[in-house]
């Protein structure tokens, strides 16, 4: 018997106020036990997609099923089986962290003993032990955010929907959280639907990612396959000794045919050049520096990242007038 998809989305569209297209005929499937990422720039349609999957926003057209249940007709059945971390903060301002968590768990039918077991198992992972008895309104943004994420791990659910959950977390907390998500999926065979605009996170965490831009899904595959499919180019990083040569270098690069894209770093005299023929580029640049008797600090070749894929794809889509 064929396993039901965790999520299946067909031509899902949401138009606000009859004119703002937030999600535009999106289609994708998420398998059970998968960590699926939805990547996109701010305002790309990630949160609206999540709100439709969580059944608090109705689609304008198209449909989706979560664990086989129709989002338009069987919302309650879906909401019983999912946990959602919203992109924006949500909390009870007057309560202590412990009371708030206990109340939230009780809403999901978790009894006191089970709550106690679960909170003890989770609290250190989220580094909230010291602030558990403090009022939430006195916690830092990062602590409140960790509390909000932890809350969804207190109750049972088959799909965790996480909308930019690491916003406000520091680097260590973020990495620990991503590892925890991986463990959770392995251990409990649950599914994670994850949105982020931090591409490195998705690359580290997700089995497959879909890239959404202006509400449209413009690419979908594993991070590895996406890099293979959409970037046969590589990046040449040139670090100059100072800014004095930068203007000339940019002018020369503008005239080169095998330069796909270039990015000047903000704080350092460094330029990243994406090229389909990086070896020829390195040769050309070496000749240039030699003829100008200019010594570069360093020149290196790097593999493309998922970020390169997105920049390339989103740039192409925008240039093609898809808005």
């Amino acid at each position: 018997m064929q396993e039901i998809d965790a999520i299946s989305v067909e031509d899902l569209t949401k138009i606000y106020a009859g004119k703002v297209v937030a999600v535009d005929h999106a289609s994708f499937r998420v398998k059970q036990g998968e960590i699926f990422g939805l990547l996109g720039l701010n305002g790309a349609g990630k949160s609206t997609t999540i709100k439709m999957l969580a059944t608090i926003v109705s689609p304008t057209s198209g449909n989706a099923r979560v664990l086989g249940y129709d989002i338009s007709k069987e919302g309650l059945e879906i909401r019983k089986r999912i946990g959602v971390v919203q992109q924006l903060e949500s909390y009870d301002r007057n309560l202590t962290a412990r009371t708030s968590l206990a109340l939230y768990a009780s809403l999901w039918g978790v009894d006191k003993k089970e709550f106690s077991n679960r909170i003890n198992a989770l609290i250190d992972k989220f580094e909230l032990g010291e602030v558990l008895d403090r009022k939430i309104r006195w916690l830092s943004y990062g602590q409140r955010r960790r509390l909000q994420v932890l809350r969804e791990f207190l109750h049972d659910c088959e799909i965790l929907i996480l909308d930019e959950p690491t916003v406000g977390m520091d680097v260590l907390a973020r990495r620990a959280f991503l590892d925890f998500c991986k463990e959770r999926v392995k251990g409990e065979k649950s599914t994670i639907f994850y949105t982020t605009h931090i591409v490195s996170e998705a690359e580290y965490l997700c089995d497959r990612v879909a890239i959404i831009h202006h509400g449209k899904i413009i690419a979908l595959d594993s991070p590895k396959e996406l890099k293979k499919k959409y970037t046969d180019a590589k990046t040449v990083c040139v670090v100059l000794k100072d800014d004095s040569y930068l203007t000339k270098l940019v002018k020369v690069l503008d005239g080169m045919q095998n330069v796909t894209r270039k990015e000047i770093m903000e704080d350092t005299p460094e330029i990243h050049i994406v090229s389909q023929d990086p070896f020829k580029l390195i040769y050309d640049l070496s000749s240039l520096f030699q003829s100008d008797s200019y010594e570069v600090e360093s020149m290196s070749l790097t593999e493309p990242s998922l970020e390169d894929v997105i920049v390339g794809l989103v740039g192409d889509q925008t240039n093609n007038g898809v808005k």
Partner: protein
Amino acid sequence: MVANSSFAGNVISLTLRNFRASLDREFLVIQLVLPLFFIFVAGFGYTLIVPHVQGISYETFLATGAIAMTVMSSSMLSGTMIWFDRNFRMFEQILMGPFTKLQYITSVTLSVILTALASAALVFLVSLTVSTGVILSVGSILELFGSLILGSLFFGGFGIFVSLRVKSSEALAATMNLMFFVFTFLSSVFYPSSSKYLVLRVIFEVNPLTYVADLVRRSLVGLSSFNPKAEVIALIIEGALMIYLASWSINRIEL
């Protein structure tokens, strides 16, 4: 792996949550000061000018009116409860959980009805110190609580409706303050429901607070200006209409 609970179970869980998370105890205490102020300060003062109204002492008239007013102000806390849930996004969070909008609205209404009854009971006990001729029987207490619940249903629904329609906390506070005065001063809380202007007389007679105040006086001191059956029916209709409007608003809200 599935969160399963009955409609009533979910409403009770949400109501308990509302009490812990959304009711500000300081605010509750402060809003009880106003009716007590009317009973003990304004009441004593006005009694010097108006000793009796419709055959009862003005202090008794005002104290019974203050019970009705307390129910209104406590029930309108539903607006603040929903507003804070919306503002801190617990509204969306709860609706993304195993609950329906109807369960959420019912829990808020139940929370304010219980709060209103507790507040009114407190004001009632305090008002006994100044009221004369109060009938205390099981029947009168049941009649009193029945009318308070009906009133609470209307004003709870009204609070929910307003909080779902306004766009800012300032607008919510301004609307609630304005409506508090409109409902109070165009009702029979402070004086008998009559006016030389037809428009005001009509407003007096459709204002649910007039019915609540009148039913409270009937149950406690046997004074009634209207037909009590008609008042109960009117309160049921107005309460149902307001709850319907609240449900309509919550279903239309864009999250």
